[in-house]
């Protein structure tokens, strides 16, 4: 991507990044704990290596309850890896992760899910041979206490059925109620992906490039949808499209080479000279260009992002 040109001097930008990171943590610490409130999500000096390659290099971040944060950064900065660590897909090499003050690093995804954190995936990750309705119902069963019950009928699980129907209507998928997930259009699958994520009523929601691969007009509609279904929740999103970032988030965390080099309001991040130097200058230009050139660029960004993530 075009942003890689700004990363041509990794040593210097890393040193800058470290400074910025220290600033970022001190700023966020001052902001988040005015009255001793426990942050919804907190990362402390998180590290993750795959073989000899260190992807996450001491990331720290503290997200207060109800905050809506976009994590941005160039390809390969470790955004998806960060989500995978928080949601329990991988265990970190070192460092700590807290969810509402509870330490969760290295715990299983289902444990973390039960403690109130849900995530979506960059590539739709659905129950392909089940219908839209069944997909959503599967997503709510645990949170409503049905556990491994084989002595109750689903038809009598009124609360689960009602919740699944509600989410389905919010997603505007009710006309496709009985269609199998694998037969949905791409945009419908993206919507169902979000639906499965939020259906269980988790308080902390992680969205990994929710609009990846969507056209500009679809993206616009989709942002509205995401705002609606995540209202009042703590939200973390990874996003490439700057339009989406400003549409969804009140704060931006900038991840470069596995470190959070800045965490602040969009304006402050934009004004941050280190961020400008390392990253944002070119991206915000691209973001504005995106808004003008319309659908094609958005779809391209998504496609690139998908390719980069896998």
């Amino acid at each position, binding site marked *: 991507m075009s942003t890689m040109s700004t990363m041509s001097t990794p040593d210097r930008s890393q040193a800058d990044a470290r400074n910025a990171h220290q600033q970022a943590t001190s700023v966020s610490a001052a902001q988040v704990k005015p009255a001793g409130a426990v942050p919804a999500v907190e990362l402390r000096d998180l590290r993750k290596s795959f073989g000899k390659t260190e992807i996450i290099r001491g990331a720290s971040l503290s997200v207060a309850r109800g905050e809506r944060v976009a994590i941005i950064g160039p390809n390969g900065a470790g955004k998806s890896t960060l989500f995978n660590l928080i949601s329990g897909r991988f265990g970190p090499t070192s460092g700590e992760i807290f969810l509402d003050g509870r330490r969760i690093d290295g715990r299983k995804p*289902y444990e973390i899910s039960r403690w109130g954190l849900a*995530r979506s995936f960059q590539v739709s990750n*659905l*129950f392909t041979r089940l219908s839209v309705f069944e997909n959503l119902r*599967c997503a709510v069963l645990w949170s409503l206490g049905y556990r*491994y019950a*084989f002595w109750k*009928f689903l038809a009598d699980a009124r609360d689960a059925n009602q919740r699944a129907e509600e989410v389905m209507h919010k997603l505007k998928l009710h006309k496709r109620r009985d269609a199998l997930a694998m037969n949905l259009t791409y945009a419908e699958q993206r919507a169902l992906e979000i639906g499965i994520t939020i259906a269980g009523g988790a308080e902390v929601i992680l969205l990994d490039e929710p609009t990846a691969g969507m056209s500009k007009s679809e993206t616009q509609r989709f942002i509205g949808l995401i705002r609606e279904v995540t209202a009042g929740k703590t939200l973390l999103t990874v996003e490439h499209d700057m339009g989406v970032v400003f549409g969804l988030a009140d704060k931006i965390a900038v991840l470069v080479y596995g470190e959070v080099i800045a965490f602040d309001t969009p304006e402050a991040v934009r004004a941050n000279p280190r961020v400008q130097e390392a990253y944002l200058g070119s991206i915000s230009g691209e973001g504005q260009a995106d808004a003008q050139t319309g659908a094609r660029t958005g779809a391209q960004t998504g496609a690139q992002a998908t390719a980069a993530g896998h």
Partner: protein
Amino acid sequence: MASRSTYDFKPYNVGRWLVWGLYALVMLVAPLLFTSSLSMTMLTQMGIAIIGCLAFNMLLGQGGMLSFGHAVYAGLGSYFAIHTLNLVSAGNLPLPVSLIPLVGGLFGLLCAALLGYVTTKKAGTPFAMITLGVGELVWAMSLMFPGFFGGEGGISGNRVTGSTLGISYGPQIELYYLIAIYTFVCTVAMFAFTRTPLGRMLNAVRDNPERVEFVGYNTRYVRYIAFMVSGFFMGISGGLSALNFEIVTAEVVSAVRSGAYLLFTFLGGAVFFFGPIIGAVLMVLALVLLSELTLAWLLYLGLVFTFMVMYAPGGIASLIMMNLRVASFGKLGPLLASYLALAGTGAAVLVGAAAMVEMTYHLQLNQAMGSEMSFMGATLNTHSLDSWFGAVFMLVVGLALFELVRRHFLVQWGQTQEEIEREIKRREALA
């Protein structure tokens, strides 16, 4: 907020009552229609096989777990059932004979709880490998512990231990109805299982185990509990077969038996709940009838299985459902002529191929009985060119015609499907 009517709407499902009623009726009147002792034997075995295949499909079709050693749970259930029966016969245990299949079920459950704890730690290919290993392990044990497994001769018993309410289980018909009741109740129970939270999560684990972990479920427990439930029903099936045959040999825990469950469940159709029922009926027909009819029955079975995997991986059940879908849109009529042509040319191919197979077998195995053999009412001479030429001619002409008909049919089928898609779109637009 959704309008309440959308999720409270539960129509009185006439179709379902009709299907279950028909199922019960068939089991009720079948022995009155087929009264010979051979058909009685087959009917009882069908009941037993239905429970087994349905229980097996709980893993294969509903959970995506390919078990290569599932006969173990039916087999061990059989052994515990026959030992219990012998305790009852000896007067050491006051238990009605009609409850002995349940004993088999409980021990099947127990064995599945023990062995499944290891097996279900993994999914996919590792799961299949472990089940294979466990199957071999139990098979090896059966040779090592003749006290329990009875060695070469097996363990025999006698189900007639006295009579309650005039039922002694001496006559086959009394046993048939016991098995029919078990089969019906187990089928209902296993169908009900698919409608429960665990049953649905089992489907989810089949489709996407990773995502299941992110909606709060431990996939391992989902697999483990389903494995135990399946083991319970396998055990019941084993217990019934112990009562039916009154002898249990080590063959019941063998890989051959496990393979039969897999093969026929697949043939019947693992995708739909009722598929294994068809598979079980075919299993008994093949094992009892086909094996009597021809020496080459395993070859035919293998060929059918191969073609099924290649051309209709959903099994017979999916073929039925596909055609029911076409019929529900009123488009089955024009296809019927094609089906008739397919069947006719297919039969020609089959007769030609079968004649050659049978003559080959005759040459190899029955040489001493002379060169003449009878095949489908005709007399073939394995040493005459005419017979071979006739068979080859039949096969080649049949194949050519079949291929012609098949191509025509594929085009026709594609068009029909497109019409149906258009019709669905139209209805959706109207809705």
